[in-house]
């Protein structure tokens, strides 16, 4: 494979993290899902043999952490087999799941296969909202699975994606995680990519909600110190500096989409860049030599204000996907940065949504309904995009 000019001068460290998106099939329909809108296009999933080869090659290069994700990875009947292979290769194996598709017998099989850790997502702390957001009746089952996960002595992470519909319940959510004996709690503010991006008007919290939630999170961080680690990821739309996205492009993370497309992050598929497929290339060729993975390595690709910015080595100019979505050019500074000429547009948008939220709270307006993440809606979106492109 050809290499891209001066960028090959940058030293490439091996990948540490392999995120295996086994499938985009999922029994849940969360409207904040970060999967691509085009999930319905991914019909040809990699085979067991493909995944085994990918895991072997990435492990040989030095990858240590392996995440089985999706979609819902439990949908894959070969999950036990993949876990066993991963563990024997020496990976620390993480299962990132909704818990739907799991029962005690399967948890036991995972344990026997050597799975290290299970992360269960909850949508909310009350049954009605949880089931509404997930589009299915799953709340009691999730709680039951969390108890079984602890019973089998797994370290347990509970992940709750936070947004305007559940942020005011944060105390109840944290009480629930205490009751379920979570070892780690990830309060993950929604990041607006994929499905959450098209639902941003309904999901973005207000500054006031965030300020209140942060206080509660802090209170529980102090209270649970030594018992449970509470990680509160604040939404970057309210920051003045961008996140060091993925710790740099092609620096640590390797994501493999269900069809075998290799990506530097699970959102990067939306960029107008060609990414290699594990069916055509080895992981080493992909990581070290592909134009896609070298595209934003180092600093040579940067434009102003990033290029001369003293903080460029700290945040790498932020998120390429966010820059692309908001400015049309992935090489621009992430508009979260207040040095970006597009930052004001972001602030205006946050302000516009705050007004919507206020009107919604006082019943002056009905904000448009959430678009749930499912194959039907995906097909519709893909079809509409095609129609727009054709005309």
């Amino acid at each position, binding site marked *: 494979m050809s290499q891209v000019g001066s960028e090959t001068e940058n030293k490439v460290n091996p990948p540490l*993290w392999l995120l295996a998106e086994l499938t985009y099939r999922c029994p849940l329909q969360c409207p904040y899902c970060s999967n691509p809108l085009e999930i319905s296009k991914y019909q040809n999933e990699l085979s067991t043999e493909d995944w085994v080869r990918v895991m072997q090659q990435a492990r040989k290069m030095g990858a240590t*952490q392996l995440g089985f994700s999706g979609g819902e990875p439990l949908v894959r009947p070969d999950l036990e087999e993949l876990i066993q292979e991963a563990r024997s290769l020496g990976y620390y194996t993480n299962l990132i799941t909704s818990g739907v598709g799991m029962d005690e017998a399967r948890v036991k099989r995972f344990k026997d296969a050597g799975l290290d850790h299970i992360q269960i997502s909850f949508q909310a702390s009350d049954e009605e909202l949880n089931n509404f957001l997930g589009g299915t009746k799953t709340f009691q089952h999730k709680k039951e699975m969390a108890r079984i996960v602890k019973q089998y002595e797994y370290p347990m992470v509970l992940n709750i994606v936070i947004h305007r519909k559940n942020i005011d319940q944060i105390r109840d959510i944290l009480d629930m995680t205490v009751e379920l004996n979570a070892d780690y709690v990830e309060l993950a503010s929604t990041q607006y990519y994929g499905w959450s991006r098209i639902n941003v008007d309904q999901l973005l919290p207000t500054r006031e909600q965030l300020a209140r939630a942060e206080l509660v999170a802090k209170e529980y961080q102090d209270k649970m110190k030594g018992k449970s680690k509470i990680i509160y990821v604040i939404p970057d739309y309210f920051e003045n500096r961008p996140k060091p996205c993925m710790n740099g492009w092609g620096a640590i993370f390797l994501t493999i989409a269900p069809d075998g497309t290799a990506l530097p992050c*699970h959102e990067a598929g939306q960029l107008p860049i060609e990414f290699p497929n594990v069916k055509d290339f080895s992981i080493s060729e992909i990581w070290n030599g592909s134009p896609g993975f070298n595209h934003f390595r180092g600093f040579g690709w940067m434009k102003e204000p990033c290029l001369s910015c003293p903080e460029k080595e700290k945040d790498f100019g932020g998120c390429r996907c966010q820059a692309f979505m908001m400015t049309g050019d992935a090489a621009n500074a992430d508009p979260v940065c207040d040095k970006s000429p597009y930052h004001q547009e972001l602030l205006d948008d946050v302000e516009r949504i705050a007004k919507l939220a206020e009107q919604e709270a006082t019943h002056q307006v009905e904000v448009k309904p959430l678009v749930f993440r499912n194959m039907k809606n995906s097909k519709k979106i893909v079809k509409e995009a095609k129609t727009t492109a054709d005309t």
Partner: protein
Amino acid sequence: MDGIHREKTTLLQLQIIMDINKTDIIEIAPTFRVQWEEVQDCFVVLYPEGMVKLSQSAGEIMKRVDGKTTIEAIIKDLETTFSENNLESDVIKFLEVAYESGWIRNRK
């Protein structure tokens, strides 16, 4: 997936006052794993979605934590292996960090 790639290359300098009993047998806590990583050329502590690289001396200590050996015996073994005296305070200092981080616990 944003909080998943924290990597600490140096240990936190924690000042903890803790009674460490040298006759205790210590083990790696069940929610952590310690292993040698060829590519990193060091021992690492693995936990959900994270990894801490251990310095050479920290690695030498942690690889001796096997759920069968007392702290006293670990210190002695290290002193013999590296032909050094007075490693006790360094080892204890590291074990305080390891306890505080939840990596090790006393064998009951």
